[in-house]
């Protein structure tokens, strides 16, 4: 997993729980804690961090991922403002993520696997998002969409239609902005 994701987690945790919280989390998870945005680190590190956070806070891991996704968006907007500028709505921004993620990941690691989101307009105006990745981080994606909506000052209702965590071959969610 890209170092930037760990960096964002650090920032989000520090902002919400104070600077020491991150150091405690690193110790609790038993991970190295050395993450730069130029590097790539084991998925297991992220799993361990999320598990430890869930234990420390006494809530489900999925909630942690969702919270993190949402909290990461303003931080991303700070670092990579250009990606947000050209879009007037959350929907338009969300639709551009494949185009953003791919070069961002591949510029560092050619051939790196990166999540691919599939988009489709549902008949009722909802945006259908399909997601398939061995990491099964759909709740993180969920949080990202929510965070993006916050950024554009919109309200998003997200419905998880099917989920890899429940044995489906891929995750699909319907997003309705109001």
């Amino acid at each position: 997993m890209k170092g930037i994701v760990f960096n964002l987690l650090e920032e989000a945790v520090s902002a919400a729980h104070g600077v020491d919280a991150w150091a405690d989390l690193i110790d609790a998870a038993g991970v190295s804690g050395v993450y730069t945005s130029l590097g790539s680190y084991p998925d297991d590190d992220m799993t361990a961090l999320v598990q430890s956070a869930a234990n420390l806070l006494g809530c489900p891991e999925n909630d942690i991922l969702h919270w993190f996704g949402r909290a990461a968006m303003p931080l991303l907007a700070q670092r990579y403002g250009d990606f947000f500028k050209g879009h007037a709505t959350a929907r338009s921004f969300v639709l551009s993520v494949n185009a953003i993620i791919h070069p961002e990941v591949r510029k560092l690691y050619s051939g790196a696997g990166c999540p691919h989101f599939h988009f489709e307009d549902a008949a009722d105006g909802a945006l259908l998002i399909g997601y398939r990745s061995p990491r099964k981080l759909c709740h993180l994606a969920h949080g990202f969409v929510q965070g993006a909506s916050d950024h554009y000052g919109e309200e998003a209702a997200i419905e998880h239609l099917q989920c890899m965590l429940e044995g489906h071959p891929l995750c699909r969610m319907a997003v309705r902005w109001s």
Partner: protein
Amino acid sequence: MPNGGTLELMKHFVPDTGQSSEFRVARLERQLLRERSARLEAEAIAERGLRELYEQKQWLLLLQRVTKGANEADDIAEAFALSLREVCIQMGWDFGNAYLIDSGSREAVACDVWYAEEPDRLFAFIDASRQIRFTSGIGLPGRVLRDSRPHWILDVRDDEGFLRRSEAKRCGIKSGCAFPIVIKDETVGLFEFFSSRTVMATDDLLATMAQISSQLGRVVERDRARRALLHDASHDALTGLPNRALLAERCARAAADLSSNGQGVGILVIDLDGFKAVNDRFGHHAGDSLIRALGERLRGVVELFQRESDPNWPAERVTLSRTGGDEFVVLLDGLADRSWVDDLTGRIHKAFERPFYIGSSEVRLAASIGFALSDTGRCDVNQLLRDADLAMYEAKSEGRGRTIEFNEELGEVIRNRRQLEHELRLAIRDCQFRLFYQPIIDMRAGTELRGYEALVRWQHPERGLVSPAEFVPIAEEAGLMSFIGGWVLHEACDALARLHAMGEAHSRRFISINVAPMQFLQPNFAAQVRRTLMRTGVRPESLKLEITEGVAIIDPVRTAKVLAEVREWGVQTSLDDFGTGYSSLSYLQNLPFDTIKIDKSFIDDLTSKRSQDIVRAILDLARSMELSVIAEGIETEAQRAILEQLGCPFAQGYLYGRPVCEEQAFAL
């Protein structure tokens, strides 16, 4: 300065061990913050550099591919098609379309060269764009034509001047742009691109497009130069035969004489069968030498025919001309006897009986001939030429080496076909197709239903259900099959999702769909399948793709690659109509299939020992290659019993169920 002075200065920097630990922690924290900021800044600098490097590399690769393709392309259309595809893939456009500027009217004319990631989704927009034309200043292409610079529309739905707005809305197209293709200062063509996302112009993109544009400008220039060389001459450079210009002149004279001398005019259009394959196999150089040899042979035939029919027939009133790549036209002016035409077509077909040689390789060609005669009440020579051309296409559709004379019934058939083609376009636009499902059962487990073959029907608003046998050939000819095939793929996967939601037993069933050669050989077919699976979320193993040997014959290497790709995700592949094609065994060995389908013709005849032996051999073969087998077209209990006894695992046919609508099929 005395030593004492330096010591005095340094003194301030000696750590004061007397400071409180709080002070020291605070200082360390400040130091940490600085280190952190430095790290972030270093990361940002490195990332920016890497991103720029990556993007530049991508642009360079794109430019390289386009340049290479443009240099290797045989004509403008090929160079445009390749460039559109590369640009769409690289930049994430959903649709790219090419125009040439008509030198007379100065209009931008779409040349039916385009690329789309998902053609069926964008059908209405593509169909509206394939042959559209724009005058300067009108629409997106018109703006580019007027200003000779790229134009961008961030949201076509808000742009009053965008003419295809309703189609764009229907297909969910949002942003678009167009770039001129220029030779020096002259705009000679243009490309337009569209996306369902907002795509913005960047400096790199504009610079790259400008370079691509000048590359393509060179292709157009090359083509013009070639045409200019040939333009004035009245003879074809390759064969030395009269060209289209001279033919037109002679036709005009024939028309003028027609009413006065009362003699007939006949026009024959001769088109080679199998010439493209020769070009593909041996290259264009060999193709050219073949055309030369053929021109020579035809000249001999026509001259002899003319002498033997009427020694006094003036030489310039019988014209053999080369009018296209592999097309020849014979004008017979002063035709005294209708039977002469039959004589000539017979001689021409006979001339093709002897093989041609390319190096030491023997090449066998044939000709499709269409002709039209003035004595059937028509005396417009240009109309005759068009009629003969239509008759030639009709001859071609009936197989190699045929001759067909144009008559009113044929005209009627062709008019009907055009009407049907028009209706077929509407059908694609309005989704008038339905899938019917025929059960496939497991014979080893009684009659357990294992899946369905999806069969497409056209629910015509007036004529009711139209069978594929009626509309597929027309769709294929009109280049519409990939749109219909795309719809079938989507609809079948949507249906699979509905089927699997019906419960445990239903969720194990598969759906098998037929993939037309044209659809399968599209450059992005595998990607379309993957996208559809992704969108619908169905298990890939429950989708079976049926292709015929015909596909493999067109391009075996590509077929193997695409099959392997879709199978990698778990999609099943099936060889349809097994046993009816060519060298089936070699295909089985080289192409990755999961299932073979035994053709109905063997099952029809299953009571004969010969058919039983064939079916047994196929089953043995399949077992040794670990392939599954489905027998098609089982209609009787006797056929079922024999197949069961031979150990055929799967079966499909009227005995188990006719194709029925989704509701009925899924209720089984």
